[in-house]
């Protein structure tokens, strides 16, 4: 009975997580596409060396229709989409009371956060 309930919960969860992945990917790739069109349209060679990511400059670059703003926002979206799927799974399993899976999801997010810290410490 418990197994039936778990299977039903996963059946509800999977389409929702699929939507998270699809929407995240399409929105991110659309942003990258805008950035790429602006980049190629400006005649700048991609091998010229793109500017580094600065979170503060992101909004300014997008407002000024600079390619790097759209490119960076899209790349951040691409990198964040799988983590959003894990967050979605965490919420889904939490609602269903599957504590073991909630713990696994939290650990995954912890490991991904450790990646940011590792990058900052070793950078």
């Amino acid at each position: 009975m418990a197994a039936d309930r778990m299977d039903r919960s996963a059946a509800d969860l999977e389409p929702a997580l699929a939507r998270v992945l699809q929407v995240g990917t399409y929105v991110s790739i659309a942003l990258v596409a805008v950035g790429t069109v602006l980049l190629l349209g400006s005649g700048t060679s991609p091998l010229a060396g793109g500017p580094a990511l600065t979170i503060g400059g992101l909004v300014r670059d997008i407002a000024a229709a600079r390619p790097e703003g759209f490119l960076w926002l899209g790349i951040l979206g691409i990198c964040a989409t799988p983590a959003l799927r894990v967050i979605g799974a965490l919420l889904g399993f939490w609602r269903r009371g599957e504590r073991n899976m909630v713990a696994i999801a939290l650990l995954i997010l912890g490991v991904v956060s450790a990646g940011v810290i590792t990058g900052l410490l070793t950078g």
Partner: protein
Amino acid sequence: MTVGLLMLLGGIAAGAFGSILGLGGGLLIVPLLTLGFGLPLREAVAISLVCVIVTSSASAGVYLQRRQANLRLGMVLELFTAAGAIIGGAIAFLIDERLLAGLFALLLVYVAATMLRGLRQREPAPQATDDETPPPPEAAGASDNDLGYLTGRLPVAAVGSVGAGVASALLGIGGGLIKVPLMHLVLGVPLRIATATSNLMIGITASASAIVYLVRGGIDAYVAGPTAIGVFVGATLGSRFGHRIGQRELRVLFVLVLLYTAIEMARRALALD
């Protein structure tokens, strides 16, 4: 403009090839950017990881929709692949690029040998690769959505998954080359579900290491943009129209491309270029 368009076209070719042959784009993007455009290997690996996330997320969405991926098993294993990816991401900045090139050459030779073996068989065997192209809907069935596969085998699954994560981060690949055989041969997961589950895991694995590269300033947005768009378009075209192309001829061509690329990578590893 010309370089950007060439990058876009190269990305389309890599995405289409990868999709049609059931290989991850990473295997082709790294050589494309290093040998074709002269980028440092580490930078090419970082951009390849971004492209791998794009194709993996798009196809994992389809797999989940069709209930082919084992969500619970995937999440348990991706905990270990993500940990391996962070270790690999950190190691990548410590080791010599020539060693990375040597490892990549070995990977290419391994994949070429696997494909040659498949060519000798009348019916190509299902490949344990970075498959990013979901099979047709009629192949879908109910998902095998439990953790029973891990009973008594968690340690070996964990070690294998960490290894897949390290390989992914070092070489800019999805790591399905390791994950699919691990799940199918060691854990006994049916191949179809193993492939779908591996695809689901690729996203968070590549994302964990891409973040390390991103934070360390290892991703060039100007190169990542046209390449990622190209790979996305190519993978989409490949999955829609790939079945119309003769697989045998394409595989022979691909093996030749892999071997040529392996030689070039080996030359780079030995500092002969």
